[in-house]
């Protein structure tokens, strides 16, 4: 069967295309109108009702719903307009689609290499099989990408719940609650360009990152050098306590403050949990608790810098 020539119309194909485009216009426009007419809160409530009965799951569901509604509000009118335009130019659209399809077919057609035609060795595949294998592979690839795009949209929605264009310094993302509290405490108690020497059973990367332009120093214990930290003190890191390092090592970095921050049971001295009164007050205010924090934070000025 010969392919239609350029410009030649295939009535049933064009008619089918018109039906598809018309359906597209109606579905996209109706959904866009629905999204724009109903308040975002309606969708958020719907999402929260279907989320797991957990505070964070419901928080994420609400943010995700808001994000997806706004993506829909932006994208669907554009898709409706594009479908309408294609419908009004249906003959040209059909021609373009045929052209694109023909191009795709040519590109993915397996070519019998020159010089192979008369080659006596057995071939592992035929040209036709190669063509369909390549097309199937490309289709599977694009299909997999589509699955990831849909999943990605959901993930961006969850991200939206937390970030909403807020900076990392504001959100302090992807770190423990304990780290977050300690960062906020140190930000409130030390001047911007302070130098802190820390003793800790953690690596404190995120404290160093978010406390900038303060500079945070910590001597890594040799036994902790190649230990990969795990969240939630699942793997306590060997660490120096204050007094275990020669004071010259501490003084070398000219610290304005010394920070002791331990979460692991091996390093917790219950008698010292309330030692830093300012920390205890800070922690109580943030947590709404009355007792002592379950981990040790003691900030001591070295005398070169006064507490604000």
């Amino acid at each position, binding site marked *: 069967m010969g392919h239609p020539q350029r410009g030649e119309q295939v009535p049933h194909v064009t008619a089918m295309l018109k039906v598809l485009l018309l359906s597209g216009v109606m579905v996209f426009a109706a959904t866009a109108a629905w999204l724009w007419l109903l308040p975002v809160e309606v969708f958020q409530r719907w999402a929260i009702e279907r989320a797991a009965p957990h505070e964070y799951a419901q928080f994420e569901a609400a943010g995700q719903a808001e994000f997806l509604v706004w993506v829909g509000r932006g994208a669907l009118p554009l898709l409706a307009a594009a479908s309408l335009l294609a419908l009004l130019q249906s003959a040209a659209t059909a021609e*373009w689609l045929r*052209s*694109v*399809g*023909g*191009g*795709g*077919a*040519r*590109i*993915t*057609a*397996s*070519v019998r*290499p*020159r*010089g*192979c035609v008369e*080659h006596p060795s057995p071939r*592992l595949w035929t040209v036709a099989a*190669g063509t369909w*294998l390549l097309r199937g*592979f*490309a289709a*599977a*690839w694009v299909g*997999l*990408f589509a699955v*990831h*795009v849909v999943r990605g949209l959901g993930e*961006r929605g969850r*991200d*939206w719940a937390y*970030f909403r264009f*807020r*900076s*990392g310094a504001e959100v302090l*993302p*992807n770190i423990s609650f304990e780290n977050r509290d300690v960062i906020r405490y140190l930000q409130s108690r030390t001047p911007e360009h302070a130098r802190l*020497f*820390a003793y800790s059973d953690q*690596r*404190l*990367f*995120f*404290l*160093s*990152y978010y406390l*900038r*332009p303060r500079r*945070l*120093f*910590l*001597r890594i214990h040799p036994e902790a*050098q*190649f*230990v*990969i930290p795990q969240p939630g003190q699942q793997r306590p890191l060997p660490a120096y306590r204050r007094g275990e390092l020669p004071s010259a*090592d501490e003084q*070398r970095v000219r610290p304005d403050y010394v920070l002791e921050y331990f979460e692991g049971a091996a390093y917790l001295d219950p008698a010292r949990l309330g030692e830093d009164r300012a920390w205890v007050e800070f922690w109580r205010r943030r947590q709404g608790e009355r007792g002592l924090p379950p981990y040790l934070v003691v900030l001591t000025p070295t005398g070169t810098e006064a507490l604000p």
Partner: protein
Amino acid sequence: MSTAALLLLTVLSWWLGGVTIVSALRRGTVPAGQHAGVEIAGLSLLVGMGLSSWGAFVWDLAGGGGIRRFPLIWTAALAVPGAWIAGRWWRSSRGGRVAAPLSPTPVQPAGSPSGGTSLSLSPRDGGVGAWVRLARGLVLVIWASLVAQTLLTPQRLWDERAIFGIKAAVLYEDDTVRSPALLDPDFVQGHPRYPLLLPLAEASIYSWLGRVDDRWAKLVPPLAGLGLWLTFAGVLTRRLGAGPAWLWTLLLATTPALTTWEYGFLSAQADAVVGCFHGVSVLYLWDWLTARTERDGEATLPPVPPLATAGLMAALALWTKDEGIALGLVDGALLTGLGWLALMRNRECRSARVLRGAFGAAAAALVPVLLIALPWFLHRRQLPLTEEMGYFDRLGLEALWGGLAAVPWIARHLVSRMFLEAGTWGLHWWGAAAACLLRPRRAGMTAQALLWLDVLGALAALTVAGMLAPIPAEEHIGGSAHRFLLQLTPVAVLLIAAQCHSDPGTESAAHQEPRP
């Protein structure tokens, strides 16, 4: 100025500076044809981003006076001439002064249904032109969505903050690569000896903005991605034709490991960026090995010297992350091995002229590597050693023997990551394996062999690293193999493309080669 305008200025400065350097590599000649323009645009972006970062490093080391000032110097010295050069190229291509090689060179067999080398968008191209336009549009849409997604969140992953982000911010704040904090062994940062391309590129963005804001610094990986895609499309257009080139560029742009996984282009981790530089380096090595100069038409002649470009990209890969050292060593060893093999198999190769040519080629690739690596390695010696694994120091027979027990686990893990988890990372490893197995003769050709040997060599290097590391392979390789494999993704896609779409001239040449 608004943040958007300043970011645009940053990108333009990198890109136009890259145009000037690429133009110098081309000895000032005007690119012929649209595909050359695409290739040069992509390459300029990578070159500009990489070399502006290296330039800031050398400038400051040489006492130039601060890295914050460098973006302005780069703009004045390179981007402004780049704007003039780009304008000249644009006018030439519009004015038709240069005969654009849109008509196919005779590399397609008569009656072949394939896309052809031509970028001809004439009605007689059987729809390839329309398909190519659609693919280009889709690639641009994917890139725009990538940028939007990337910039939706600030930096939030472990390495992007602990290793690269902290260095970028400190470099900007201290305004020198000799930052006392970064030189201090007790300063809290991840991997103090990691290379500085990404931190300095981020610091350059902060310099334009006048403040640290880690959201906007995340622009670097998507820009590297765009550079990779355009260069990939340009080189493949020359070798395989516009249709296949844009088909595989589109598929490269839709690889989940690079595009949709949060550790790929969506974050400011260095893995995807290394993947871009290494991928383009291998792309130009493959291009060079594929070239048959005597039959190459104007359309298939590389617009830049391929070996020097491959060397430059390999150097930028090692200036991005330490894996770049291993990848560069693998490729260097492969080229040496393949050259040695050619020498053994073909007596004509032993002539003085050919040997001189081989040494010239090696020098072309090595000079950029030495230029970029030397100042970095000299500076690196001053940086603290806190948690660096020190693989080269540990390398020895005893250590390797001791690490042998880890090999079965590493092999099983790699197979699982590459093939059993294809739904997560993409189908490229299945495609690469199938393409080699189904066309074994073509896979045996030198240019193709480079690609799969590069992958095997890289996997071997990772295995050796797992054997030598002072931590269990389950943790070390288990937590990093997927990011390392991400770096090899462009090579895997290139391998599939090169296996599926023959450059028939090359193929027929291979069939005419005497069999051993």
